[in-house]
């Protein structure tokens, strides 16, 4: 078979762990190489995913139709009440708007939408073109906020002004404007915010329930099942618990600086990390040993039922090899541990937006021979899947067809998923999904497994 080569401009973002070989730092945090078919999206995408689950606000995309159309009802982020976040609003800029400016169109759009849907707030996303034609979004938002009496928040998410991470930051910037504007008198001292949890398939509800069982008050979830009033009160919490570090660490740092709220990083994937995320919160309240006791109780109850149910999967999957390519690096750490707990090893680990520290840790965690990639692309992923003979790929919609074409299993671990993978129950679902895909008899027909073309 023909050797698949790596582009020269990409080589520093790929690393294979080998004994006795100098281990340079992986290059990351850079913009994608032109023409490399990155799996990343843009600044707008970063902002849109972070704010998307806020369900009682309208999300208005200022630009031509594409950006709004491709993000309409795109995430599995569910709401327990209003569902304004599942609607797609766009100023749908036309050629004349590009020439003469889109401010009026934006103004009228906002006034009408707010009148029609009565949201608690409005987020206005700038797209590429708005950055060029120079619409004064800030001024329009101020005017509309004044006239309607609700927060109207510009999100500076012009697609080309950085990477997806800059979009996260722009979104957090808008959230910071809301935080600190709600009443906090009745918030318990034993309280947290859950940051970077988007309630995909109801995951935030699962996590929240664990913390509540421990006697912890959850002030706000940012942004899963999000509500504007909860965001406004987030500064009343004692501790910020940050998942999906890529998107929300900036916000946690800002809140620490402005409101003196410390933060810890957690992950809710896999038994080990899920348990740790409960213990770490409990440890933060040493004057209440009952919280730690309750945490232990939750973990032991959950593990008691979960552990035996995983053994069937472990038996079948032991020795199978996985490739991981997801958005944030923090998730990769958990997935490696979770896969190990069901007998699988990891031969490829990568992310779209990991930073230097993330990759250093990944290097430490991985077995020898594991390939680590930053901002990879279909050609590279295919190359390593084939060379390392992976049996499974974990990724999102764009990675799925690569796995299936090459005749290996696939687990959806992105923001469109409809099955909760977080929490203890999530670990069961994860193992089940991996098992159902890897062990399916359909692969016997795949050409690489002896099937005929």
């Amino acid at each position, binding site marked *: *078979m023909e050797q*698949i*080569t790596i*582009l020269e401009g990409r080589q520093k973002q790929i690393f294979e762990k080998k004994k006795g070989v100098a281990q340079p730092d992986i290059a990351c945090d850079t*913009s*994608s*190489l*032109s*023409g*490399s*078919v*990155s*799996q990343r*999206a*843009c*600044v707008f*995408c970063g902002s849109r995913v972070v704010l998307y689950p806020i369900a009682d606000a309208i999300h208005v995309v200022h630009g*031509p*139709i*594409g*950006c709004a*159309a*491709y993000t309409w009802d795109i995430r599995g982020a569910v709401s327990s009440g209003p569902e304004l976040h*599942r*609607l*797609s*609003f*766009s*100023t749908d*800029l036309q*050629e004349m708007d590009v020439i003469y400016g889109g401010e009026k*169109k934006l103004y*009228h759009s*906002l006034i009408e*939408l707010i*009148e*029609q849907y009565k949201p608690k707030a409005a987020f206005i996303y700038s*797209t*590429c*073109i708005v950055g*060029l034609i120079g619409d004064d979004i800030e001024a329009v938002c101020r005017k509309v906020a004044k006239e309607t009496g609700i927060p109207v928040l510009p999100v500076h998410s012009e*697609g*080309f*002004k*950085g990477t997806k991470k800059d979009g996260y930051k722009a979104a957090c910037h808008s959230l910071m404007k809301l935080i600190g504007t709600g009443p906090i008198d009745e918030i318990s001292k034993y309280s947290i915010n859950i940051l970077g949890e988007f309630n995909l398939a109801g995951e935030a509800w699962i996590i929240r329930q664990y913390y509540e069982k421990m006697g912890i008050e959850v002030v706000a979830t940012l942004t899963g099942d999000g509500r504007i009033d909860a965001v406004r009160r987030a500064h009343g919490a004692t501790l910020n618990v940050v998942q999906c570090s890529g998107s929300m660490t900036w916000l946690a740092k800002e809140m620490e600086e402005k409101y003196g709220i410390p933060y810890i990083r957690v992950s809710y994937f896999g038994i080990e990390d899920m348990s740790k995320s409960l213990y770490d919160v409990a440890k933060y309240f040493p004057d209440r040993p009952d919280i730690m006791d309750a945490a232990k109780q939750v973990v032991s109850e959950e593990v008691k039922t979960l552990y035996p149910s995983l053994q069937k999967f472990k038996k079948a999957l032991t020795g199978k090899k996985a490739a991981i390519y997801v958005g944030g690096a923090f998730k990769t750490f958990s997935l490696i541990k979770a896969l190990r707990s069901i007998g699988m090893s990891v031969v490829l680990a990568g992310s779209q937006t990991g930073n230097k520290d993330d990759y250093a840790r990944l290097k430490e965690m991985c077995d020898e021979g594991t390939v680590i990639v930053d901002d990879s692309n279909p*050609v590279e992923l295919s190359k390593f899947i*084939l060379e390392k003979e992976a049996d499974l790929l974990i990724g999102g*919609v*764009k990675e*799925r*067809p*690569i796995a*299936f*074409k*090459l*005749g290996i299993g696939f687990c959806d671990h992105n923001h469109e998923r409809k099955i909760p993978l977080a929490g203890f129950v999530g670990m069961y679902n994860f193992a089940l999904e991996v098992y159902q895909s890897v062990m399916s008899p359909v692969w016997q027909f*795949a*050409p*690489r497994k002896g099937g005929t*073309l």
Partner: protein
Amino acid sequence: MKHAKTATQNACKLCNPLGACLAFRGIESCVPFLHGSQGCATYIRRYLISHYKEPIDIASSNFHEESAVFGGSHNLKIGLKNVSDQYKPQVIGVATTCLSETIGDDVPGILREYKKEFKNGTPMPILIHASTPSYQGSHIDGFHAAVRATVKTLAENGEEQSLINLFPNMVSPADLRYLKEIFNDFKAPLMLLPDYSQTMDGGPWGEYHRIPPGGTPASAIVSAGSASASIEFGSTLEASKSAAGYLEEAFDVPRYHLSLPIGIKESDKFFSLLETLTGRPRPEKYEDERRRLIDAYADGHKYVFEKKVILYGEEDLVVAITAFLSEIGMTPLLCASGGKSGLLKKRIMELIPDMDVLGIKVREGVDFADIEDEAKVLKPDFLIGNSKGYTMSRKNNIPLLRLGFPIHDRFGGQRMHHLGYRGTQELFDRIVNTVIEQRQNASSIGYTYM
């Protein structure tokens, strides 16, 4: 309550570059390339993958702030070089975006420079450029722009040969396979463009393919200029924007313009045209298909007669389905499209002169909020269109018959037939079944024969 409406709410269209990317995927060994931000390529990939379930690599020049200020020339060239090195394509289809169009990049000029600067490197792919600003038109315009640009770049003059060009419009891979089968059975040499029947619905891979096999070879497109005729589907597609229009203008290849052949009458027109152009009668197999379809119409007519529907999608598809519905006695209360050619009503009027009497309403440039408002008043028996109508279907408890693109919430959209007797048969069966299911569900008896 009726609200003033400036913003587009739940769009019933996609942006221009998406159509171009799909069309470029129908050329053999071609990588679609978007000159703009990284997000455009990624979002479009994701959107197409959710329908076609195939790997779809779309390259991007990945603009940064400097490119937006100083022009995207540098990024475009580096991008083309990297795509050439990594994919070794024979063709790169470059489509623009709102960003590169607004800053006014001279893409043809940049491509000329690129060819000069890199002529000694890797083999130079053929570079095609389609102008597809997202602030104009919709995805279907990008589709046609890419097909026209491809022909414009490649087609050459030559001695007339017995070849027919077919520009099928944005149809399913299954439709494309059917069209090829028809030409094969007529023993008529065919230049089908685009042909993503395999690239967007192919088999498993024994080894990695940088670019999936299939598609119309560039060499075949060269011959389009010396073909004896072009057939082009799409009643609102104007010659000035179409590939067949260009070939007629540049090389005197006669353009035969048909509606998408859906329903018996429109399919008959297509088959008659093929008989005329090839001088051969239609193969018996299609007579059989036609006979079975007429028989099915008879068997099912009572289920569908005077059923009222709302129909939406690309304008050409809406016109074609309207024609089909009118021949089985169904009434499209509303024919709606997010597109805005200005021709939708005219074309439907030509098909159904008494449309006003029948209460058929036509609306261009609408979104799903508009269609939903209409649905509340019109109370149709069901909806016909792509799967993006599901939200309103569920909310208003009106069944949805899915067809066209995208089908994101059902399996096998890429294998659905729409065209010819075979496609019409499939659609008719599905429509009848929709009615039967509705009746069965509504009945308290639980009939086992319907």
